């Protein structure tokens, strides 16, 4: 049991936040968990959260890796996703007949574009030693303009049957397709981390690049690799987002999602200055953010005030989780324990003073 607690202690923050949000929602209305069946698919609050957060989850996985290895954040993910999805839409629209093969080919093409964009950022960060946030500022500035150029016109519409199915539901499958795609992606990432040494390498590079280099790990290659993975993540996220929306709006697609992705990484208990990371935490963090957004909507707060509440919630959350407050809580808890143990000892037998001294020393 104690081992279990030790393994999952980093998940304490996201899970407690989620619990808190669920309690708030249950107070608002007891039907929070109700799931209804419409046209052979599940709908309801919980499926909607999974549905809405799918791109954010995928992007926050990539963001976790980039943060862990390069000690900085990629702020161009929304723009990269816009470019990759623009290529996807371009390929689908130029085809005469849209089949599954076309979609798959277009998706692979957009993945290649994502890899290229990741390689662009990765080269700047690893070879030229530019800080990640600065390096991705370039794509952040020019990305939407490139996507607009690929589009040609303002918002091409994806009006075919298969895209529609990918964006909503496939008949006969009770779960919305984006959720399935997200789960498949998460499983893929999990298998990747089970079968390779990537996790160890990324953590080593993030903790100390010089030490990693002396131990025979090339930090440049690892950082470059994380940016490539980030590129694939943006391609998948762009694919899901554009199929959900049904049209490619190069101005507003996934706008400012990097803020949410970085927030998800932080809520997941990861340090934003690199080193050890937990992808599970980031995934839970991403779902928590979507849950928070939907909770604020569900509480019928004035739309103008939503951002204020979001900010206050995040601030309270970070204050509770901050190292100073944690230390204070732990100390006061220890003090209470020490007081109780001394009290019980003075009442009971006085033969074991040793434990008392060690307790005091630990404190």
């Amino acid at each position, binding site marked *: 049991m104690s081992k279990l607690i030790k393994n999952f202690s980093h998940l304490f923050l996201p899970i407690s936040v989620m619990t808190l949000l669920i309690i708030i929602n249950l107070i608002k209305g007891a039907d929070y968990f109700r799931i209804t069946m419409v046209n052979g698919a599940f709908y309801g609050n919980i499926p909607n959260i999974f549905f809405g957060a799918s791109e954010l989850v995928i992007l926050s996985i990539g963001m976790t890796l980039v943060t862990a290895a390069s000690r*900085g*954040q990629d*702020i161009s993910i929304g723009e990269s996703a816009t470019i990759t999805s623009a290529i996807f839409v371009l390929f689908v629209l130029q085809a005469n007949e849209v089949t599954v093969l076309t979609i798959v080919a277009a998706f692979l093409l957009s993945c290649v574009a994502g890899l290229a964009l990741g390689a662009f950022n990765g080269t*700047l960060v690893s070879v*030229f*030693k*530019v*800080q990640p*946030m*600065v*390096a991705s*500022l*370039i*794509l*952040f*500035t*020019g*990305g*939407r*303009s*490139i996507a*607009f*150029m690929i589009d040609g016109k303002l918002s091409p519409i994806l009006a075919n049957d298969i895209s529609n199915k990918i964006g909503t539901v496939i008949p006969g499958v009770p779960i919305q397709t984006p959720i399935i795609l997200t789960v498949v992606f998460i499983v893929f990432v999990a298998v990747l981390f089970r079968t390779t040494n990537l996790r160890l390498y990324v953590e080593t590079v993030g903790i100390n*690049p*010089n030490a990693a280099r002396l131990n025979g790990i090339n930090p440049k290659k690892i950082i470059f690799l994380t940016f490539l993975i980030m590129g694939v993540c943006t391609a998948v996220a762009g694919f899901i987002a554009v199929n959900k929306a049904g049209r490619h709006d190069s101005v507003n697609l996934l706008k400012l999602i990097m*803020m949410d992705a*970085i*927030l998800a990484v*932080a809520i997941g208990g990861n*340090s*934003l*200055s690199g080193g050890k990371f937990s992808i599970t935490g980031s995934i839970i963090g991403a779902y928590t953010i979507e849950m928070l957004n939907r909770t604020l909507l569900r509480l019928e707060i*004035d*739309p*103008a*005030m*939503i*951002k*204020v*509440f*979001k*900010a*206050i919630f*995040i*601030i309270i959350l*970070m*204050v509770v989780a*901050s*190292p*100073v*407050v944690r230390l204070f809580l732990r100390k006061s808890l220890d003090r209470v324990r020490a007081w109780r143990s001394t009290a019980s000892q003075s009442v009971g037998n006085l033969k074991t003073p040793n434990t008392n001294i060690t307790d005091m020393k630990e404190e």
Partner: protein
Amino acid sequence: MTTVNVIKPKARLSNSNILFLIAAVIFVLMYIFAIITFPASFMQFQTFFDLFNLNAPLIIMTLGLSIVMIGGGIDISVGSVCGLVTMACAVYLEHKMGSIGGAILIALGIGIVFGILQGYLIAYLEIQPFIITLSGLFLAQGLLTTLHKDPINVTMPAFVNLRDFDIVIAWLGAKNRLGVFIPCEIKPGTIIVVILLVILASLMKWSRFGRNVYAVGGNSNSAMMLGINVKRTVFITYVMSGLTAGIAGFVYIMTTGAGNVGNASGAEMKAIASAIIGGTLLNGGVGNLLGAPIGTLTLLVINELIRAAGVQSNFQAMVSGLMLYFFIVLQSLIMSLRDRTRIRFTLPPWLRLSEKAKSGNHRET
């Protein structure tokens, strides 16, 4: 004797100064290029002053942000705080009891409150600055829309006078197409920029606080061991950043004269970009406040050049991205070349390995 001569000048030029020099040289070269390609517009002094007149808020924000970045933090709430200040001032000035002095107090007050809140949470509770200032951004935006949603045009007579007030330099100017001589005009915002620049730059350069900020940004652990109050220093950097954001908000409304939801939106990214072009590193400990206006002006001259060249508006963002790419790579190349030459020329071979590791460590921290 020769070895001493070789070592000394190399060692004296610190990272802050070399990055500042690169930025300044690039800016001057770019302005000369602009004058050569478009002599009609860039030769006029008014064009140069307009860069200041219209973008004074951005330069002021960049100054505050640079201090935070030198101290090793980041503040992405500046743009939204500036927007909030403009709206609050507009609402207050349109109110019956409004006065300009009160509006200035409101602007400074909002800035300082945001600075104190964020600074306390970041410095004393040790929360990651990105998250706190991100929630500060959300908070400011939310308060802005809560306060008022529609654009307000301030019609108070005293304020309109202030808005239209220009300082005219009679002996500098140009003739327009009709041959009428038009003297140069400088907005009060430009004066504020210059005053703030002088105050803050000398503060960072010569005061004890400024040196503490450099020490904390360079390595907070060793700064603490040297007896510097790290927490208070970090706290004050955020308060100053909030204060400059407040001043920027007032200058903004003094320039445009209207409160709008979209005011100064996205300015935080522009401010970060200009601070970086000006030679401030995000890691902290390196930077020069004089680089902040130079970075901003470089960014603005890029935009002006693109506009003057008549590039289609869709491609403007792309071209400025490309220019940014060029700068960043150039900066990084110069830095790496400099490291290499220093190691090759200044150290005797038997010291090279350990020193190389040391310099590598220094760069990483």
